[in-house]
């Protein structure tokens, strides 16, 4: 009787997540894959076709947009890591007592408002008649108003800012589990700061670094608001392309194909990343 009970209990516990996964994730994706494999022949009639996928590879525009999105996402991930690592190290290893939760809270606070509000905040700061431009003029450092919005660098700032927390959290938790005595031992054995970092801290933190990078990369690649609002006239982001196909072009077929391609290509990039860093997915996510 007992195993039966157990199975029933397990099934009951798993039901919500399974329902969620099949109804809201798997089924829509299957439907989308099916839509992406058809082509509108004339009004109301559709035929099977690969043309939506070939369009991605033959029209340089789409391919380049994807590459641009991927490269900028990788750069944003690297930048986030560079900025987040020292912060996480300080929180996990240097800060003591009440300072620790306080610092952690400081990283968390910006996420209490929605992404939209944060992005508009950046726009108020950076626009030509904005806070920063006025400040620079008041200080006399520049002669006229400076436009800081609508550039790739602005997109990057926005993306890094938006993803910071998702890098800090896994980093702090892995660094926390590193025994301080290992660091001390390394110093006792005469290692330099750099050596300790390279041979003790980073190898220990590797799973955290990789999982943080995966989360940040996926979030950035799938971000829609930040690149669209901060990027202005030159911001072509792949998600924007998908949105345009669905909503303004009524071309669900092409949009679905882009969606599926984004899923495949981003998974591929993550897989390559795992290979290069010699981490396994199960280890990183545990």
């Amino acid at each position: 009787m007992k195993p039966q009970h157990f199975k029933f209990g397990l099934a009951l516990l798993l039901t919500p997540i399974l329902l969620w996964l099949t109804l809201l994730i798997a089924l829509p994706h299957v439907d989308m894959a099916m839509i992406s494999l058809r082509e509108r022949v004339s009004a109301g009639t559709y035929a099977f076709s690969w043309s939506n996928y070939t369009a991605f590879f033959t029209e340089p525009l789409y391919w380049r947009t994807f590459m641009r999105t991927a490269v900028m996402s990788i750069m944003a991930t690297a930048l986030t890591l560079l900025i987040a690592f020292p912060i996480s190290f300080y929180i996990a290893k240097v800060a003591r007592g009440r300072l620790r939760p306080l610092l952690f809270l400081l990283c968390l606070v910006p996420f209490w408002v929605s992404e939209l509000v944060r992005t508009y905040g950046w726009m108020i700061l950076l626009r030509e008649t904005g806070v920063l431009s006025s400040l620079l003029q008041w200080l006399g450092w520049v002669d006229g108003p400076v436009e800081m919005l609508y550039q790739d660098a602005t997109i990057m700032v926005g993306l890094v800012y938006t993803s910071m927390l998702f890098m800090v959290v896994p980093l702090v938790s892995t660094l926390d589990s590193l025994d301080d005595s290992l660091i001390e031992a390394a110093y006792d054995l005469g290692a330099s700061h750099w050596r300790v970092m390279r041979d003790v801290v980073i190898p220990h933190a590797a799973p955290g670094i990789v999982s943080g990078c995966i989360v940040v990369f996926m979030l950035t690649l799938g971000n829609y608001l930040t690149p669209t609002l901060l990027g202005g006239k030159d911001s072509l982001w792949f998600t924007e392309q998908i949105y345009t196909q669905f909503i303004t072009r009524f071309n669900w077929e092409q949009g679905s194909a882009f969606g599926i391609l984004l899923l495949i290509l981003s998974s591929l990039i993550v897989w390559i990343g795992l290979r290069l860093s010699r981490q396994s997915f199960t280890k990183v996510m545990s």
Partner: protein
Amino acid sequence: MKKVFKRASLTLLIGALASSVANAEALRLLTWGGYAPDEVVAQFEKETGIDVEVTKSNNEDMISKLRATGGSGFDLAQPSQDRVTSAQADFNIYKPIDLSKIDADKFIPSMLEATRKNTQLDGKVYGVPHVWGTSGLIVNRKSAPAVADYTDLCAAGLNGDVSYRLKRPTLIGFAFAMGEDPFSAYNDKNKYQAILNKVEEKLISCKGAVKTYWSGGDDLLNLIRSGEVKAAMAWDSGGWKLNSEIPDVTFVAPKSGALGWIDTFALPRKTKAEDAAYKWINFVMRPEIAAKITESAGNFTASKGSDEYVNATLKKQFQESFSAQAVDNIKWYPPVPPGLEEMEGKVLDRVKAARL
């Protein structure tokens, strides 16, 4: 991708919820901002006992929403007349209008007739006219006095000072200003593509003059208010609204002609409150009600005699922007044949992606 999907499924979900909650005495209106002001809605509710649920939208969004549900979720929609037949042919989302249920004498006859002709598909009529207006230029006469036509938006001296939308009106406007007639090429895809290519080249070379491509009306108004944008391609109503705040800024009918649009009433195919929809149409076409909508939307309506009720400022602004000659020069959008928007889409994508 997930975001888009979330959006789509959310729309579906909300549509489903709305349709299950709505009873017979509710009218779900899919319309533009300003077309159903609170005052008018309240008066209608008081007179008929029918609740009005207003959803604000735009042309593409209306078609997308109705397409996602096969024409349910709303009882009355307000697409522009040039976008009715192609959407109907492709997605079958509307229901023919029963013209006998419309009080034809409340409409300006020539407009009713024009819309009847333009929204006809297989002998059935899908739209009656409601609000009309134009797209043209909003110009700050002090900082950009030379802008008089669409192509002036990329004149030398304007560096990061102008804004327009990356949508079809921009392509059409630039084509006219470059001496082409895109409307007459609507049925000749090769010719139309040639015009589009010319416009594409022009728009790419103009990117330096652009501050940003606007997408929401309020965004643009803010850009002009702050002085960051000196000239833009936009709707007349926005220009007049700004003119009331900043006298230097106003709407200018471009030399090559303002682009005229008419927003219609169309019945979604699975409308659940058809009677209420006809009641609403006949209600808002009363001259005094139509005048209230003109005040809130900033555009005139197809209601006969409503001009008398409209306040003097708007009339004055209209006359200042449109001489009799400029009114005659308005280029009215003919219905868009299927297939063109796809061609235009690619051009717009390439302009967006281009770098100088």
